């Protein structure tokens, strides 16, 4: 009898899995719909951020090719520093313009043809040369996900997209040694915990010779330039393509690197 009753109720049971009310699961992180501050946003609790920071730091050390882990480390540890950076950008006229207009650097927004046609020693041409020689593309930056403020999410996105420009300004290639030097520069300039951690722990995998060069020449030079130069996030790079690189370096107070880094590490 019970089986017959159950059989008759079958059509109603065809749609199972009524979503459980939110009260049942108090600690879940909302990933969809309400609560998203920007399209790629994933709201996270403090516990999740702490775990992410620790996990991404460990994974980045374990597997240096996981650039996404470095990015996640930056997002989860940088909240306070990003606020300071954002306020400092607001105070600077060019920086305030960047915050207002929110320019993005990607293959879609860059006019590569125009950049290629610029004179040889201009900033734009040198930037393009940097991309070609090191075989990198401005499109490999992952979108911000774990920053819980929409403007700060843009600030860290801008920091990531400007990273290649810093390489060009400093004349550093994308090998490990070059990246560490750039991280030292950025650590002094921005104070982001992720930069500081990368700068301190990145050299672990270097050979003794490279380490010696790094400590004796490159780091002092990077720190000196980092202190002297105004914040690189305040430069509206998209308007400075035609500016000669030498002039731009002089404006920022950046000197030539003490030695060529291409062959090392």
């Amino acid at each position: 009898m019970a089986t017959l009753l159950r059989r008759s109720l079958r059509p109603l049971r065809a749609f199972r899995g009524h979503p459980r009310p939110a009260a049942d699961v108090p600690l879940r992180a909302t990933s969809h719909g309400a609560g998203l501050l920007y399209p790629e946003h994933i709201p996270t609790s403090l516990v999740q951020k702490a775990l992410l920071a620790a996990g991404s730091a460990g994974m980045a050390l374990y597997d240096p090719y996981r650039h996404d882990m470095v990015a996640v480390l930056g997002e989860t540890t940088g909240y306070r520093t990003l606020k300071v950076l954002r306020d400092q950008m607001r105070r600077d006229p060019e920086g305030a313009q960047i915050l207002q207009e929110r320019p993005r650097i990607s293959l879609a927004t860059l006019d590569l043809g125009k950049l290629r046609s610029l004179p040889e020693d201009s900033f734009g041409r040198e930037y393009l040369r940097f991309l070609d020689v090191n075989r990198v593309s401005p499109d490999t930056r992952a979108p911000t996900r774990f920053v819980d403020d929409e403007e700060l999410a843009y600030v860290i996105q801008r920091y990531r997209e400007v990273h290649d420009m810093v390489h060009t300004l400093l004349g550093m290639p994308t090998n490990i040694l070059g990246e560490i030097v750039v991280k030292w520069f950025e650590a002094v300039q921005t104070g982001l915990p992720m930069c500081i951690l990368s700068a301190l722990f990145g050299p672990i995998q270097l050979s003794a010779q490279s380490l010696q060069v790094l400590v004796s020449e490159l780091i002092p030079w990077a720190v000196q330039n980092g202190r002297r130069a105004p914040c690189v996030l305040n430069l509206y790079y998209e308007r400075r393509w035609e500016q000669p690189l030498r002039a731009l370096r002089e404006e920022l107070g950046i000197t030539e690197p003490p030695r060529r880094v291409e062959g090392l590490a």
Partner: protein
Amino acid sequence: MQHGVLSAGGHPTIKMAAPRSWALWSLCGRGWSPVLPGCRLPWLRSCWPSGPLGARPLSQEKRATETHFGFETVSEEEKGGKVYQVFESVARKYDVMNDMMSLGIHRVWKDLLLLKMHPFPGTQLLDVAGGTGDIAFRFLNYVQAQHQRKQKRQLRAQQNLSWEEIAKKYQNQEDSLGGSRVMVCDINKEMLKMGKQKACARGYKAGLAWVLGDAEELPFDDDKFDVYTIAFGIRNVTHIDRALQEAHRVLKPGGRFLCLEFSQVNNPLVSRLYDVYSFQVIPVLGEVIAGDWKSYQYLVESIRQFPPQEEFKEMIEDAGFQKVTYENLTSGIVAIHSGFKL
């Protein structure tokens, strides 16, 4: 009367004032992705009175074609595609993540499933949603061990092997599985690929077959298998009742249905810890190890959406199985449901 036509994305797009036209409806049916689980009457589900026309009450029909994807609500058509994408993305790190997330306990659960199954040599097993082959490999190990034990017993009891068996042994033609076969069926190509690679790496060849198929519409004849298992797969199926009916169909009379799945925790303290762990730690693990937060968020949400033990037991009974029982493991984090086709 105006009708709203749903595209595969689940949004009302075209509104026609024309009377029902079969050609148009069959067109929208064909426009959907081929990954759809057995959609027998796509045109019926695609056209219903559109919302923006006015305050139309949600009919029973409309609600029935929406389902859950984790805590999101999606149309049934979408769900199949989204689940496919999740498993396509997690396939490469699936086993590593299982070990990390369950701290290796999933191996114990799967071993317990095999112990419960207690297959003897000659069993024909169908492992649905068997992707990376964990159950299949355990089954092969189990029946091989059983077969060897049986042979040892025979020898010890002074039952000499027949000349055919001795000849076969020398020619290495003896079937070390004693006639057992396992068919691994999965809807996702990536998962099957991983499974095949694992089988090659571990040297499993005999008695193993890999089939691409949908749990809601299995590509097998009726009354074919002795045991049907589905481990951690049925909660991802869009129409669980259809999967259960298919299970009933392909089993031989006397065959057994076994389902290993996450279920409801019965202990309030464990439940609280489990929730914290699921929602705080698992997506983080997914991000750090596999670079994929969202897939693992979906996985933990889908566990919460699955019916509890008693309800699932009733669903199995509805499909025609008898002597349905369940056994909780690890305070109900996981449950093994068992039923027989008699």
